[in-house]
């Protein structure tokens, strides 16, 4: 029996899956497209809802997975299956013979420039959640001088015009988290959140929302921002409807943060083709028994984990990664 496993993707899902497999006694190869492991987690500063440090969290994931064999800046070129063994050819021409494959290729952040009306890349004051997170991480001070700040929820989510009908699940609480953090750095700032629905489903999220209102005085306005213009002073003039009072509304801001949602990984189609599995209408990979099993595909020995199958929070991703490891173990012990 082949006790070697290939994990495609070295983000939190791939790392945690490797951890579990290693402790079950398997040999793990991780193929990672970029130069470092950690995926989006590496770019983040603090995690919702309790404000844990992202780098410390990643550090813990890496500590345990160092027994895996990493291939950085490498992609999988082709996969063949013969006699229950997968033969994967990597971009550096390495050939791996493995008993099972776990796909953990994650998501990509919605490119905010596609929402032309918000002027990302055109107006200086318009940034994304990732830009703000980077500023938190690197201590880039210029953003925090802004005294009037807006957060636009659902940028690239719940929007068929950009082919994302789905809810990205994590942006609501991320916006609330970032708004609070912004107020910590600039207590004088007026902060507005423009939302369609506030989906505070997770443990501790509602508390964070209450704190944002009560302690930080963040104003939540129910209504989708329609357009952003720049006035003569270079400030942003934003239009929306306050749907709760049914009034059109206008506000001038210094900084606008777009909550880019979770989109499919653009490589998904290629991976699906290579492995012989399906994709959903929105491009995320399909599970064959979505209610019963979070990891199972129609190809035996190929498992999915993390946000490659749809938007997920970090704890959900890690749970799925551990479940995937067990699924692999069950498959190989049959």
């Amino acid at each position: 029996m082949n006790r070697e496993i290939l994990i495609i993707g070295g983000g939190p899902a791939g790392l945690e899956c490797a951890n579990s497999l290693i402790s079950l006694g398997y040999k793990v190869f991780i193929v990672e497209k970029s130069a470092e492991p950690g995926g989006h987690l590496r770019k983040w500063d603090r995690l919702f809802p309790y404000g844990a440090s992202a780098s410390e969290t990643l550090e813990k994931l890496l500590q345990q997975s160092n027994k895996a064999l990493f291939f950085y800046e490498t992609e999988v070129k082709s996969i063949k299956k013969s006699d229950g063994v997968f033969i994967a050819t990597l971009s550096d021409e390495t050939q791996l013979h493995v008993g099972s494959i776990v796909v953990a290729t994650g998501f990509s952040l919605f490119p905010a420039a596609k929402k032309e009306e918000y002027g990302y890349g055109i107006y200086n004051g318009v940034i994304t959640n990732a830009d703000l997170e980077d500023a938190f991480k690197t201590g880039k001070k210029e953003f925090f001088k802004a005294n009037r700040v807006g957060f636009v929820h659902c940028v690239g989510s719940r929007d068929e015009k950009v082919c994302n009908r789905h809810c990205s699940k994590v942006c609501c609480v991320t916006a609330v988290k970032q708004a609070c953090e912004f107020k910590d750095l600039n207590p004088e700032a007026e902060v507005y959140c423009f939302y369609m629905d506030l989906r505070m489903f997770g443990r501790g999220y509602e508390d964070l929302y209450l704190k944002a209102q009560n302690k930080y005085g963040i104003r939540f306005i129910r209504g989708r921002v329609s357009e952003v213009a720049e006035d003569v002073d270079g400030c942003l003039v934003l239009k929306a409807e306050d749907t709760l009072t049914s009034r059109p509304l206008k506000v001038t801001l210094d900084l606008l943060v777009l909550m880019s949602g979770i989109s499919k990984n653009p490589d998904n189609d290629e991976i699906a083709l290579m492995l012989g599995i399906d994709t959903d209408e929105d491009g995320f990979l399909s599970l064959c028994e979505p209610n019963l099993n979070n990891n199972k595909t129609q190809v035996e020995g190929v498992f999915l984990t993390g946000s490659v199958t749809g938007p997920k929070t970090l704890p959900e991703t890690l749970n799925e990664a551990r479940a995937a490891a067990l699924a692999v173990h069950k498959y190989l012990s049959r």
Partner: protein
Amino acid sequence: MKEFGYSLSPSSRVDLDKVDKSKQNRLFALEPGFKKCMSCGSCSATCSAGNYTDVSLRRAISYIQNGQDQLAVNMLRNCMLCGKCLIICPRGINTRNLIRNILNVYGEKQI
């Protein structure tokens, strides 16, 4: 800058740039629950006076936040202070005190 070209009729448009924040802060000091509203609408739904006339604390809070004080005051003057909204509010806002203080801070007497 001079307004030029087409514009919304000024009465219906909310301009958050022109909201008097000092009064809002006073209101907040008098009733800290003011900021906790999540616009669920329970207060308006249960309102005794709401059976007969237009009262909605939920909307009044938004009006105040949007700087449309008089809309809020005119509506809340209909309130009988019966306390049903106090009992029903899922966020535990002291609604009666909020209503009283909106009338005090923004009303004619402006205590």
